[in-house]
């Protein structure tokens, strides 16, 4: 998978790496058991400090999306269906939806936009949301 970091963005680099790995899992580019490079290797490829990559991997590990193992680097774990979404997920989704409504989008428009995004993920096919 490609990770493309924008050095001029307001979003910190570790967050960009974390977000793009989450998106790759959603798209199906990364599946259960997919390996990710060891932190030092990925940091060297980016030419950035390895603590930055470590921070991204640590976030993903806390979210239960990857498993870190000594030597082999990181591995994408199975999506745990019984696992609850992180506590701040609702808060983040709320902010994004509020933004859309504040800009004058109707509920239908917002739902349609969400639907389109979800459809673009490979994972959306498996979870048949109403």
């Amino acid at each position, binding site marked *: 998978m490609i990770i*493309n970091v924008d*050095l001029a963005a307001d979003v910190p680099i570790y967050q960009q790496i974390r977000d793009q790995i989450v998106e790759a899992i959603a798209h199906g580019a990364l599946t259960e058991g997919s390996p990710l490079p060891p932190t030092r290797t990925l940091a060297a490829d980016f030419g950035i400090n390895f603590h930055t990559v470590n921070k991204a991997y640590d976030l993903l590990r806390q979210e239960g999306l990857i498993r870190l193992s000594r030597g082999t680097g990181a591995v994408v774990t199975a999506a745990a269906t019984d696992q609850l979404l992180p506590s701040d997920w609702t808060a983040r989704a709320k902010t994004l939806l509020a933004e859309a409504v504040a800009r004058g989008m109707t509920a239908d428009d917002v739902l349609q936009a969400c639907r389109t995004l979800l459809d673009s993920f490979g994972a959306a096919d498996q979870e048949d949301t109403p």
Partner: protein
Amino acid sequence: MIVSAVLGLVLLGLVLLLALVLPSVTSNTIPFGVRIPSRYAADPVITRQAHLYRRRVLICGGIIAAAGVVSVAVTGQPLLLPLSVLVLVATWYGCFFLAHQEILAAKLAGGWFEGLHQGIAVDTELRTNPPRFPWLWLAPAVVITASTAVIGILMYPSMPQTLAVHFGANGVPNRVEAKSVGSAFSLVFLQLGLTAFLAGIAAAIVRSRPDLDPARPMGSSRWARHYMSLGAKALLGLVAMIDLGLLGSSLLMWTGTVTRWAPLVIVIPVLASVAATVAVLARNNRDRSENEEDTGLTHRDDDRYWRGGLIYVNREDPALLVPRRFGIGWTLNFGNPRAAMLLAGVVALIGLVLALRFAG
């Protein structure tokens, strides 16, 4: 002497050809070693500098070749031609540097990178599923080296008591040594050392870090994978041809054959394979995949790590091999302590060969 003079001229011609072709095969976002955003790739300053560069190289190359031929004809010293190749390379760098400075000045004055989002693209699959080392391409070099050793062992009893280990420019041996394992197999040791060293570099190439274009990372990564594999194969093909030349030279030494064509046995396979390697890599040197949506990011401006536009020195970067900016293939990160160790290794290898030749 005629042989050396012709070889010198061929080498001069090849270097000149390479100098003229290089601007067309290097990435159009790094003209003359200056990183620029793709929207400036066709800027008039760059077109003009490329034109001036070619004219300067052609004029200087013509003068140097003529001076080389005349000096050889007058002095009768054929080594003056290889020397003129060195002068040509130095002049070539001068022409490059003039263009480099002019483009750099235009870029800074025009603020070409202002307002652009600079990015870095990485393909994790190049790490989790790297290009495979082309073992099949190593086979010819190994077979030729093993054959040379076996032929040497079989011929050892019948070899002359003194072996010619060094030849003058006219092909006549100017140093002989008593037959010993060290003298008879000196070229086999050289084959072994070169094969191991160049196979090591080929292995490093397929694991090296490519310079992906954040604007089109997917196509860029596909091309990088192809180019790394091609580079490793080309290098292994090159070492096979060098080993073949050394096999031929060993046979001449072991049979006591003296011929004025002796230098050709080693020079022709090496020169031909170097030319073929350069041609294959030059044809594939530029990433030509176009059908990918632009991500809106541009490559980060990394000019400050490239001294004089050519030498990569970045202490923060753990990479050892990086793609060359102006030219074909890869170069070392001279800010990496391992680069110094590698250079020391090469010097030690050359030292070992010289020591073996002078020993006994």
